[in-house]
């Protein structure tokens, strides 16, 4: 009986030795094909800021990212460490620079579809687009986080990040509910100049933060696939009941121009002093901006509004 167990043990031992590899190796379906990895990638390159943010959240520092300097200005958090190479613009990265870094995984979106074959020549490419026609950005960003977590052998961390975001949303919602501040709708806008704003639509990333906080989006129409619409300032006039949250940055001189415009001073939210302003948050990122936005939005609503932008 024991003699029979000899090959069995051998097989068990072999299987056991394979286990750590199996945990991370695998095949994934993505938007433009399948991707097979034999071991967790060490040298990852990301071609957009949402992917960069997700990698950093997972504690993986990419070897190269697209538009590195812009990331530090517009996305800011999580911070990009020094020593990461810049591999060019997000719309037109330098293939030669990517190849020179000898990556073992490239993360990109379907925007790069025309370059898909060229990228595949360099390294396995994972294609996921949070921002495209018909997608729900947060769900896609979540999927990206979990899939990259699995590929990079950091699934627990990915789960913890998501739990943390849910936790933040819950806490902040309770703060708002306690103060009785959840009933009036909120319009989230960026001023482009003194006549036009970008207004964030229900199909955008920010909607997840509003949902989580128990707030209603004043703007109910679908935006472009990035989740916003560019509108004239008069387009927010019909939403007389809503509060207006202005996301920085604004151009210099804006508050003076608005103060001189009777149109603005007669605007019902302005009359009620319900104009709020929060720091810049990247609206086209992964899951992390939700946490940032939820905190800032709650703080600013609790602090109280004014009758103009700062």
């Amino acid at each position, binding site marked *: 009986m024991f003699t029979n167990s000899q090959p069995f043990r051998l097989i068990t031992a072999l299987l056991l030795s394979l286990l750590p590899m199996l945990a991370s190796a695998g095949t994934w379906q993505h938007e433009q094909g399948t991707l097979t990895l034999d071991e967790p990638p060490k040298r990852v390159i990301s071609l957009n800021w949402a992917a960069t943010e997700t990698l950093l959240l997972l504690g993986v520092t990419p070897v190269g990212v697209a*538009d590195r300097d*812009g990331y530090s200005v517009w996305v800011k958090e999580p911070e990009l460490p020094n020593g990461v*190479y*810049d591999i*060019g*613009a*997000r*719309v*037109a990265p*330098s*293939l*030669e*620079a990517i*190849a*020179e*870094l000898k990556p073992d995984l490239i993360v990109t979106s379907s*925007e790069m*579809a*025309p*370059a*898909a*074959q*060229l990228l595949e020549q360099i390294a396995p490419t994972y294609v996921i*687009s949070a921002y495209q*026609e018909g997608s729900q950005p947060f769900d896609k960003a979540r999927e990206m986080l979990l899939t990259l977590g699995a590929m990079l052998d950091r699934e627990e961390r990915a789960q913890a990040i998501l739990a943390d975001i849910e936790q933040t949303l819950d806490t902040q919602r309770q703060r708002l509910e306690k103060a009785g501040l959840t009933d009036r709708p909120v319009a989230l806008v960026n001023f*482009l*100049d*003194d*006549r*036009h704003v*970008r207004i964030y*639509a229900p199909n955008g990333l920010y909607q997840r933060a509003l949902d989580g906080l128990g707030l209603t989006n004043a703007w109910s*129409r679908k*935006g*472009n696939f*990035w989740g*916003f*619409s*560019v*509108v*004239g*300032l*008069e*387009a927010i*006039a019909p939403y*007389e009941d809503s509060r207006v949250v202005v996301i920085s940055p604004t*151009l*210099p*001189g*804006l508050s*003076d*121009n608005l103060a*001189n*415009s*009777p*149109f*603005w001073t*007669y605007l*019902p939210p302005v009359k009620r002093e319900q104009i709020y302003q929060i720091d810049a948050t990247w609206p*086209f990122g992964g899951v992390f901006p939700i946490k940032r936005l939820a905190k800032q939005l709650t703080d600013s609503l609790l602090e109280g509004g004014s009758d103009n932008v700062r």
Partner: protein
Amino acid sequence: MYADTSTLPIAAVILWLGALFASATPWLNQLDPIAILSAFWTFNPDQYASVLAHHSWAPRVSIAMLIGCGLGLAGAVTQQILGNPLASPTTLGVEAGGQFGITVATLFAPGLLAFSPDLAAIGGGLLAIGLVIALTWRLGFSPVTVILAGLVITFFLGAMNMAFLLLKGEWLGNLYIWGAGSLVQNNWGPFMDLWPRVLVLAILMLLLMRPLQLLQLGQASASSLGARVGLIRVLALLLVVLMSTTVVSRVGVVAFVGLAAPVLARLLGARTLGSRLLWSTVMGGGLLLLADTLAHWASTWGDGSLVPTGTTTALIGGPVILLALQGIRNTHHMPGQESSPAGFQPKRRSPVMISGVIVTLLLATIVISMGWSPGLDDWNWTPITQWHEAWVWRGPRLLAATLAGVALGLAGTLIQRMTGNPMGSPEMLGISGGAALVMVMIVLSGLEVGRLGQLGAATLGAAAALGLLILLARKHRFAGNQLLLGGLALYVFMDAGLRLVMASGGTVAAQLLNWMYGSTWLTSESEAFGLMAFIVLICGFLCLVVRPLTLLPLGDTSASALGLPVAKARLLLLLVAAVLTASATVVIGPLSFVGLIAPHLARVLGQQTVGRQMIAAALVGGLLLAAADYLSRIVVYPGQLPAGLLAALVGGVYFLWGLSRHGRA
């Protein structure tokens, strides 16, 4: 041949009343007609709709009329100065200059913009026209050279604007809107600032009317009557610039009103200078009001996002130009095309020597491009033994760019020879515009297409544009100016789409702009070789058609008399030019303007006969784009600029230098 003169006032009244009524319609269910009318001077603070009407709708309507009138007048004066219905403040580089001014101010002196948006735009506009004047002064400031220099300045400054948008897009959110033109208002301030200035400029323009009338007689006769032709032109041009930049500084680029209004006035029968100026002004106001109303309506349909007025002016301007195509009969209405550029006949040079020099330069460019390149840490020289490794990333794009340049050089020469108009080029013919239009629509619809899809779409667009052109131009036996106008109309439509994309979101626009200015980096090896086989084939064919090309510019009668089936020859050459353009457009985008520049460079280099000009233009085009591709890869490494944009910059600089140097000789 012309409509009766009495139709003009009727048409104007219908246009104005129709547009006004359409504009007021959305308010009818909130306010009574008296209240709507009185919104222009008063409002009821207790009724929010009335506040909105007085502070948002009424100033918008007023400013639309004011700006439309100003641009219409400026357009009519421009056409009078330059004697060419294709001329407008836009083609003189004024709007590109204005945008350049605003871009630079936004990036480097945001305080200035807050202080006064006009200064930046006017400064930019003056810079543009200053360059045009400086370049053409020595050449006696003749209309054709002014138009040419204006076009090149437009492309040059336009390319600079695009470079800024691509590199600093996030910082320039306001520019996407400004570039698309939006008349949204929320107080009376801008209108009150503008109307006295527009009035003063209009009066000054009218004071120049008599001297302007003399220009119609032609340079020689006008001079003999004691008119200082150059001075009058400069003065009038300055006024045009001031008018255009003053009005656009507040609302952004509302293109083509200055082009469409005079064309419409002329179509409806305005003949004397006085009536042209008057009715262009009136029509301009009506057109812009109509366009703005459409834009406002369109903004409330769909998802509520802003449809910029620049889009609808282009949508209206296109058909007007197409109408002109049917109405403006003959070439004598286009003096610009007849007089070959004054003093633009450089001394002939040996074709072997010139070709030799260009080929040597081309080879040098190839060697440097393959070998000397920046890496992530520092620059290094790739030895020839390792070129096969570097080839994957540097070779196909270089080859494709060079071939695209050759194709555009050939197509440009064909078209300029065929139309006999120095403004003729594949870009101006609208073939690249057709290809681009399809791409714009794809981006607007949010579809993600692969490389093959892009190729197919561009070819389809170019073919459709060509089909449309043939259909339109058949009546006129494919005569040059009708083609150019038709092409311009197509370009206008493309522009409308582009402005819509630009206004709707920076990030999408950046992707599109990249393609528009040429994404050589996407070229694969097989595409490059496919293109090469194709171009070789076409070159072989072109050797056979040198004769018709020599004969066509002699005029229809002489060409027929010499045994040439004129219409058929034109159709054939047109097809060849279209196919060449489509293949190049896929690689380099529709806006490189190599097709315009290369044939001129060939002439500057002293290659006058058809065959020689064609060879030189092909080589120059290839060299230009090869160099542009190399530069696009290295100047902002690891970022890259679109090669077509650099070609426009490099080619533009050389072209301007050639123009001014020749003037000195």
